[in-house]
């Protein structure tokens, strides 16, 4: 019934490698958003020593009312003095300073009578963190300048520490990346660029598509990701390209009725969007493993396809999921997904970049 029937082999047949159960030296680390990855940026502010400690709470109230700092709610208003030789113990943050700020008196900074400056010393300039820290690294850096509040994202902290995945999950991840590496090797054997990719349904562990770069002068855009996205579509009975000349590229036919049952019991159900066949919208909820970081075309194809997570082994020079862009973590695009790098990094680094 299907002209491509010959390709409808299960992805996990005997030709694919068995997962290697030996412990290996790799760690899946998150590729965070620009906001999470950037260095702490500083802005100048005025602070003043509190010479009479008993005035602290009154000063705090009056200064905060006059200069509320709505964009710097992460900054604590009072810090202990860092200079042990100074007579005062506390310093209070008064207000932000202009970029070319100079010396200012209390009278210039604090309108009276709204603030009674009794108990304050001479104001001084101090660099403070411009925006709230999102990772522990940013927090450590920020608080070296001025005390800062930090609402830790435990998920990100665990991910950054490489503690997000259990030993069992890491074995599975390694198995999938080994398949991608094997696909890349198949491409290289056929004289094609050595990039391999695998699409997995994490809810069932089923491998839905295995693809490698098929680009040539006849079709330069068949990168491994584009091949896999079309193979998933072929598994759903559609698709565009004929991959018969590349027999290693394969897909598992999506099983509609089992699919509905499997989907209806999983917690992802609420986030999944089914079409009339009871299948998710293109790659919604699926994971993609790829040997090297995808280019801008492939990264945006993943946004359009609603991929859930991407694991890549090693970066690419023009890579769009961490190196040159972070297309997966932009608030201005309509879909975001998680990206981890480093899975089987040493092996993947030997393979071709995605360009």
């Amino acid at each position: 019934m299907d002209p491509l029937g010959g390709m409808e082999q299960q992805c996990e047949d005997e030709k694919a490698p068995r997962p290697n159960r030996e412990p290996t030296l790799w760690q899946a680390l998150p590729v965070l958003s620009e906001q999470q990855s950037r260095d702490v940026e500083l802005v100048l502010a005025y602070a003043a020593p509190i010479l009479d400690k008993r005035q602290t709470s009154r000063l705090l109230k009056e200064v905060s009312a006059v200069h509320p700092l709505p964009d710097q709610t992460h900054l604590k208003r009072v810090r202990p003095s860092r200079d042990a030789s100074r007579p005062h113990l506390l310093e209070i943050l008064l207000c932000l300073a202009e970029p070319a700020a100079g010396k200012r008196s209390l009278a210039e900074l604090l309108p009276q009578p709204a603030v009674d400056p009794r108990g304050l010393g001479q104001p001084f300039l101090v660099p403070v963190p411009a925006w709230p820290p999102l990772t522990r690294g940013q927090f450590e850096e920020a608080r070296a300048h001025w005390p800062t509040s930090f609402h830790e994202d435990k998920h990100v902290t665990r991910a950054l520490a490489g503690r997000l995945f259990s030993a069992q999950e890491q074995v599975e991840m390694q198995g999938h990346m080994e398949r991608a590496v094997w696909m890349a090797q198949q491409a290289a054997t056929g004289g094609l660029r050595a990039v391999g990719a695998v699409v997995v349904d994490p809810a069932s562990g089923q491998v839905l598509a295995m693809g490698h770069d098929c680009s040539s002068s006849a079709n330069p855009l068949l990168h491994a990701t584009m091949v896999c996205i079309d193979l998933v579509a072929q598994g759903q009975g559609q698709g565009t390209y004929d991959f018969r000349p590349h027999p290693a590229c394969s897909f598992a036919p999506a099983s509609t009725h089992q699919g509905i049952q499997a989907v209806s019991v999983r917690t992802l159900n609420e986030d999944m969007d089914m079409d009339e066949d009871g299948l998710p919208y293109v790659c919604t909820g699926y994971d993609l493993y790829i040997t090297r970081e995808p280019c801008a075309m492939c990264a945006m194809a993943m946004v359009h396809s609603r991929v859930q997570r991407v694991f890549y082994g090693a970066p690419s020079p023009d890579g769009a999921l961490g190196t040159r862009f972070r297309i997966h973590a932009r608030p201005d695009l309509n879909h975001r997904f998680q990206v981890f790098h480093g899975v089987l990094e040493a092996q993947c680094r030997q393979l071709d970049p995605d360009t």
Partner: protein
Amino acid sequence: MEAEAAPTPAPGGGCSVSAEEIEKWMEEAMQMAKEALESIEVPVGCLMVYNNEVVGKGRNEVNQTKNATRHAEMVAIDQALDWCRRSGRSPSSVFEHTALYVTVEPCIMCAAALRLMKIPLVVYGCQNERFGGCGSVLNIASADLPNTGRPFQCIPGYRAEEAVEMLKTFYKQENPNAPKSKVRKKECQRS
């Protein structure tokens, strides 16, 4: 009106077009977008023109193929590759002298694909505020990406208001093929 400004020669002299050519091919692209709108597809139409000949045409085929990368530009690129095969020409010699006429700014994916194909010139209508790869979200068209083909020149704004109106009409009726947003789903459940 806005595109009266004479296009500057493309870097490397790959392609240059006259105002008359822009008018002629964009009129055809607009007609394709209108047809797409009538068939409840995202109203984007595009043409690839080589030596004053249309070598590829495209409109969105996402729903039909269940492949979310089948944008009008990707369909047109595949048609132009077919044209090269049939006419026995090498794709690189053709694409490097081909202009794309499209009613909406290419998205980030298509902009990167156009770079990889080394298309020198893209004439387009309105901005693509959601996904645009020629400046609206990212500027893939002119970015310094030494391993991703070549940058291309853009002539934006040709009959932009018309192209925007078509998009607005489409999104007002809501894209029946896109996954529903959670907000919309909840609204549906309530009603």
